[in-house]
């Protein structure tokens, strides 16, 4: 399959990229990892006349972890996210999520900015960024603005990004030490998008949930923030009744389409199951600050605790 014709550009700075994108007009596209755009171009579902490759702009790369905030450059790859020890220590849900995206080869190319910016409801990072209440820095020749991940997604492939704009950075408040977390994703096989997936971040104190954030992937045309579900567990000990209430509240806001992954009713129910598992796993991990080494899981199976995960059978 041969894509349509285009002109290739390789800028070395952000400013050059903004200029090239503006000059290219509405049919110009930025190219990051390319693993969503190139397949679309092969099918001629995307026919850009100019591609602006962001892969050689060093100011768009990198991970910075401080005591208060975490900042990630937009073209940082999934592989780089997985390999970062300091990111794993500070915010392990990103490591857990990246490992469940596509396959190793694709993770060497695929970027965080591409995953969140494409607007594909099947992408995993948008819900995780909403869970972390992340801020996207969006820049163009006109300047810079910040948009909350929770306000960025308008519909399938429709986002707050305007023509000529590029997401340059993702930042969020560093979750407190000892927070509980989980990203539970049901998929049919490696490389598939989620049938349904749930992200959970929570803080436990004295056995009770102090605060919780729950978000969902691929059960609507945008990621979903399950605020009622989070409210249902706040102040509880995550006893079965509280978890059931959260599951029902999360299922109530889904609006999936029926596809090869299952009927709408099935996918809604699976969103509930993922919320259930993610809450239990996050509870198990909360207060546990022993997660300090990535050596075993950097290229291997995600540590999914008692949820087992895709390769749980291998470890039994």
């Amino acid at each position, binding site marked *: 399959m041969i894509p349509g014709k285009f002109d290739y550009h*390789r800028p070395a700075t952000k400013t050059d990229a903004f200029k090239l994108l503006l000059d290219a007009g509405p049919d110009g596209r930025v190219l990051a990892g390319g693993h969503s755009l190139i397949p679309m171009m092969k099918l001629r579902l995307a026919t850009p006349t100019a591609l602006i*490759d962001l892969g050689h702009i060093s100011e768009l790369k990198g991970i910075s972890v401080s005591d208060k905030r975490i900042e990630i450059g937009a073209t940082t790859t999934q592989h780089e996210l997985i390999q970062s020890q300091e990111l794993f220590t500070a915010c392990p849900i990103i490591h857990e999520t990246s490992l469940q995206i596509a396959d190793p080869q694709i993770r060497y190319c695929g970027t965080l900015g591409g995953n969140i910016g494409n607007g594909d409801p099947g992408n995993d990072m948008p819900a995780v960024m909403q869970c972390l209440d992340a801020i996207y820095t969006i820049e163009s020749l006109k300047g810079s603005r910040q948009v909350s991940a929770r306000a960025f997604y308008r519909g399938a492939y429709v986002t707050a990004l305007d023509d000529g704009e590029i997401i340059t950075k993702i930042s969020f408040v560093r979750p407190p030490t000892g927070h509980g977390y989980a990203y539970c994703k049901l998929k049919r096989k*490696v*490389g598939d998008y989620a049938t349904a997936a749930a992200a959970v971040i929570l803080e436990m104190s004295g056995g009770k949930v102090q605060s919780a954030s729950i978000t969902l992937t691929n059960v609507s045309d945008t990621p979903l923030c399950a605020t009622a579900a989070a409210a249902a567990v706040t102040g509880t000990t995550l006893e079965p009744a509280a978890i059931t209430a959260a599951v029902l509240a999360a299922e109530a806001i889904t609006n999936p389409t029926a596809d090869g992954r299952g009927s709408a009713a099935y996918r809604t129910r699976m969103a509930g199951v993922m919320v259930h598992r993610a809450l239990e796993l996050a509870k198990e991990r909360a207060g546990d600050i022993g997660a300090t080494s990535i050596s075993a899981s950097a290229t291997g199976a995600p540590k999914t605790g008692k949820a087992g995960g895709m390769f749980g059978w291998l470890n039994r």
Partner: protein
Amino acid sequence: MAKSLITLTINGEVHEQRVDDRELLIHTIRERINLTGAHIGCDTGHCGACTIDLDGRSVKSCMMFAVQANGASITTIEGMAHADGTLHALQEGFRMEHGLQCGYCTPGMITRAYRLLKENPNPTEAEIRMGIAGNLCRCTGYQNIVKSIQYAAEQLRIKEAAE
């Protein structure tokens, strides 16, 4: 049509090529440079038969334009054996453990496993299976591929210890 002059270092040899901007890297490698070891399987980024090693990353070369690789250093299956013709431990492993039947996925499997073992010289079985999750084999059922990679990992560790 937009064309670009690019330089690729493949298996230590420098190649200058004038390519179409829309040309996929696998086509440049196979059809212009005539290295046909990397295969085109699915052409959709699923099967991994076109896997090459590019600047220390395993990459599906059907999912990247040749112009994106301008300046890169690439290893393909043709560059795996040693200069004296002896096989790389992975190639030997695939032979010893019967890690291939039709052989179509093998160049991708070996180049992927090459990077996996560079990053993790002593992988568990689960880590090997996760590590080759981007490579499909429709013959072997993967058992012997996993054994082949385990064989190579052991050989490479013995070699490392001896040096």
